[in-house]
């Protein structure tokens, strides 16, 4: 019994410590982002551009087909019950508000969050972080800040691409290859989209970007003695990112729509 309570207490303290660490890291990153360092701005900008390229541009061949498939599936299935539901409204509800941000985040987690965790972990284990420090360079400035800005920008951009491809591409494919009744689709969408949907979509993108970056950096920077701890940290980072994104998604939806 005592052992059980002890284990429970240990787990609770561990969880509180982890959340406190994440909050401290978020605060530190936001402080740096709001008052960027004077030195190294050119280098930092270059790393941001590289990060946007890796996370957004290189993800396009993945996100475009996924958006088209999901857009097609939804339009095909929803057109079966055409007349009972407002097709454009349901597409807005599902794609713009929920699926777009979440699927973009999942793709970023699968591609970039794991990569960032591995990169930071290896830099940590192989003394590359120390090499930066010995050059008088704050790793928060050249490693963390560019990843925060790059990943957040990338997710917001990918959400826009996903939404456009799912709606426009999905419509074009269904219209081109089927005889399903989807007349008035764009008019219905235009009628049902309002400013809140755009704000919700972008807010989710920004919060997902912040959460994914902080979670990956936290797992990457956690001290490791052996290289075998890297895959464990990477797996945990991916699962944590996914869980936190789900919680943020439902939280924002509740705030705006309930």
């Amino acid at each position: 019994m005592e052992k059980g309570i002890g284990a429970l207490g240990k787990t609770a303290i561990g969880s509180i410590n982890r959340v406190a660490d994440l909050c401290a890291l978020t605060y530190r990153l936001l402080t740096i982002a709001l008052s960027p360092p004077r030195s190294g701005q050119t280098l930092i900008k270059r790393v941001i551009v590289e990060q946007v390229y890796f996370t957004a541009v290189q993800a396009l061949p993945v996100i475009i087909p996924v958006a088209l498939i999901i857009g097609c599936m939804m339009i095909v299935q929803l057109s079966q019950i055409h007349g009972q539901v407002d097709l454009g409204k349901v597409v807005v509800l599902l794609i713009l508000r929920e699926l777009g941000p979440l699927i973009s985040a999942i793709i970023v987690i699968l591609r970039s969050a794991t990569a960032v965790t591995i990169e930071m972990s290896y830099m940590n284990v192989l003394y590359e972080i120390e090499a930066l420090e010995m050059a008088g360079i704050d790793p928060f400035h050249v490693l963390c800040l560019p990843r925060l800005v790059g990943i957040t920008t990338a997710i917001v951009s990918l959400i826009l691409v996903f939404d456009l491809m799912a709606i426009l591409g999905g419509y074009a494919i269904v219209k081109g290859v089927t005889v399903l009744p989807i007349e008035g689709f764009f008019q219905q969408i235009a009628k049902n989209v309002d400013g809140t949907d755009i704000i919700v979509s972008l807010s989710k993108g920004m919060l997902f970007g912040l959460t994914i970056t902080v979670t990956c950096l936290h797992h990457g920077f956690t001290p490791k003695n052996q290289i075998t701890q890297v895959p464990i940290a990477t797996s945990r980072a991916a699962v944590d990112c996914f869980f936190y994104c789900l919680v943020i998604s439902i939280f924002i939806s509740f705030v705006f729509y309930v």
Partner: protein
Amino acid sequence: METASEPIIEIRNLILSNADPTRQVDPIRLAIHRGEMAVIGSDDPLDGRHLLRVLATLDQPWRGKYRFKGKRVEMNRYRQCLGIKRQIGYVATDAALISNRTLRENLLLMRFYHENDLNIDLDETVRNLCNEAALASKLDQRPAALSGTELLKAVAIREIAKSPAVMLLENPETFLEAKNTDGLFQQLKKMRRKGSAVVFSTNDSKLAGLANRRLTLVDGQLQASPT
């Protein structure tokens, strides 16, 4: 204000570690002066490494007040330590280059950051050192393309390029030879003549013989010696 007689690094009341709390250890004062060449002698290589890392402000001693060029350094103040680290060259046996940057970018990284310019190129000294270390043809390759010795030479060149006040070397015999034909060795001698101090640990008796001071570590504690 720095004076010529003032040590570059001074640690007062130094106790390096407290592995055996039952043992009474007397704190000592360690000072590294301009132009000094000190060799670390220790019964355990890890202790020598620990001392080098303490001097580089990468590790904290169990007790001790660190001063750099006469100015007190709080070792738990990260930003202040970064400014000190920039003035210290440190080449450990497991030192690394940034793996996703080319050798040229690695050698220029500190200047890229502090000079805020990505269009600068290697200066003449660094270029010559790269030529002598046979690294010139590998400047645009990633560190993975370098052998272990080449990597350490590259790290040493990167640290020399900082024009550090103190050069800390762990087993320098792995990447340089105490010969006048060795460019890195020559450069270290030149730096020392200009006032930089060199502190190193080594298993090479020839290199150890070049030092004008010996820092002896016994059971992880630095022994009192004239400063």
